[in-house]
């Protein structure tokens, strides 16, 4: 059998050919991804024997009960959720003007340069970026130096005193963490918004102006509704990435725990995989709910 008869064989059986193509990747994703998610759920309904520190493989809801009844745990979830929402909102506010300039006002050459200028830090090493912020936010670091040079150390100290967002230093405060989160996910918000803005035909903006709308009105009534899918798509990234992150809170963190840190800690020193698994089901559910919400805003088409 040569290549041509094989080709004709598949020509007559298009579905079989499709299945053959899909089998290897689906097999992989099915086991190494979906299978592991299933293992995660399985672990979450196991429990850990307090005395032997071994995993007891009998299905039980005790782990979930432990998760939801300890008030400290609910605090953790709430804290993480709040941060995720704040980061999303801030990122949207910062990203929109940048994307707007890129698409509406920049020349094609400048726009291309902007795209590269956003992709470069976006894909630059995650850990290096977090580390850089640790240096920047340190007491002796550049941000502090800038406040001192402006004679505003008092302002910085006052900010750090505010309970809930402050901390002993910028590098170990919620506001510091917030800044780092916004920085890290900003490109993920800019790009879908820019893509959505590019899809708005120039003729719509011209029609709006022709009918008497001023730029701000056009923005509110024409541009914003059309850009919503892009905003929603970007928000999925900022929301889910913040919800699950554990590295940033441990490097630039206030003492309060985040969901990711709990998962990391429980599987590490405590060896309590069931509790870690149960904790990680929370972001899965939250993200699932969020995805369902933004799907109606058209985010899936804008990704």
């Amino acid at each position, binding site marked *: 059998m040569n290549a*041509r008869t094989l*080709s*004709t064989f598949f*020509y*007559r059986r298009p579905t079989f050919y499709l299945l053959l193509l899909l089998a290897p990747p689906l097999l992989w994703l099915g086991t190494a991804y979906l299978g592991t998610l299933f293992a995660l759920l399985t672990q979450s309904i196991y429990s850990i024997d307090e005395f032997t520190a071994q995993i007891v493989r009998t299905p039980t809801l005790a782990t979930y009960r432990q998760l939801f009844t300890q008030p400290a745990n609910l605090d953790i979830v709430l804290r993480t959720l709040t941060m995720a929402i704040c980061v999303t909102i801030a990122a949207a506010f910062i990203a929109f003007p940048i994307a707007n300039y890129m698409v509406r006002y920049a020349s094609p050459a400048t726009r291309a340069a902007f795209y590269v200028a956003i992709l470069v830090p976006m894909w630059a090493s995650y850990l290096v970026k977090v580390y850089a912020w640790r240096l920047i936010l340190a007491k002796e670091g550049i941000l502090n130096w800038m406040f001192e040079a402006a004679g505003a150390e008092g302002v910085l100290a006052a900010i750090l005193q505010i309970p809930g967002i402050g901390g002993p230093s910028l590098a170990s405060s919620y506001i510091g963490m917030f800044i780092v989160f916004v920085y890290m996910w900003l490109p993920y918000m800019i790009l879908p918004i820019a893509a959505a803005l590019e899809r708005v035909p120039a003729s719509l903006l011209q029609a709006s102006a022709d009918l008497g709308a001023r730029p701000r009105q056009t923005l509110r009534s024409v541009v914003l509704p059309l850009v919503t899918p892009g905003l929603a798509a970007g928000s999925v990234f900022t929301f889910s990435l913040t919800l699950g992150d554990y590295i940033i809170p441990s490097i630039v963190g206030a003492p309060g725990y985040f969901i990711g840190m709990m998962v990391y800690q429980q599987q590490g020193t405590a060896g309590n995989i069931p509790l870690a698994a149960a904790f990680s089901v929370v972001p899965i559910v939250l993200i699932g709910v969020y995805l369902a919400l933004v799907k109606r805003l058209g985010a899936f088409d804008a990704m």
Partner: protein
Amino acid sequence: MAPAVEFRSVARTFGTVRAVDGVSLSVEPGEFFAMLGPSGSGKTTCLRLIAGFELPDEGHVLLDGRDVSSVPPYERNVNTVFQDYALFPHMTVLENVAYGPRMRGVKSDDRTAAAREMLNLVKLHGFEDRRPAQLSGGQKQRVALARALINHPKVLLLDEPLGALDLKLREEMQIELRSLQRRIGITFIYVTHDQGEALSMSDRVAVFNAGRIEQMASARELYTKPRTTFVARFVGGANVAEGEVAARLAGSPQPFAIRAESVHVLAPGEPVAPGLVSAEGTVLDVQFHGATSRWQVRLDAGDVFSATRGTGDSSNVPSAAGERVRLAWPRASMVMLEA
């Protein structure tokens, strides 16, 4: 001799849509055959069935007498000129044209020579090393033609090839394609939605509507003796009256067609010769078309009829919108139609 292409009750369904609904036809070798119809009528699907990009769900497709229903495109002696030309952008014009021979294993020198010859035939000598992106629409068209013809197919399929060209170029290409076909002598099957194009170029035309062929005949016959109301309207834009309107005008509800050039425009109340049918109406609009003018009249019986009148005709007839007018036409020129 077996027909070049034959369809025997072919059907092709996409989901719930029967794109081709029991089509039977036969194309003679050496014919210039057109498949005409609005978009969605099934003509393009039929073309793809001939080429092998679709397989029939029912019925049989035969090429040169042989059933090819499960034969892949690369084993059919048929070539296609695509609507978007489908030239390979990463190859030069010469490489594009030499593609077919290359796939058949023809040696490099031989196929280069053959390709050059083909390019000469389509009057693109000197364009060998250009890339498709550097060509105009008309030039791309000729490359696509050369690329298809170099394989000496028994049948050449053309899928609305002139759609993207401007009017003048289109008319030139129509003449060129027709003379090319006569010269080479192979069967051309031409899909279009432009009835003028189909009528002027082809030996026979199949008129498609909703997945079926309503009429298959020569251009002249389609024009003078349409069989259905769809064909009468689509081909040549005749006046068509059906049902009640037909009954009021001609006495029976059977639909009929009458060409605008057979309808005379008269002043209201002007006497009508025997053997003519007359109808009163109101002028909607008169369009000046150079040698003729076209009256659009809303008949009292219902519907709008068109009548054409030579510009040289000096007799005075109402021509302002809203004026009353009388139309008349010979009963013998009426073509009775099926539903």
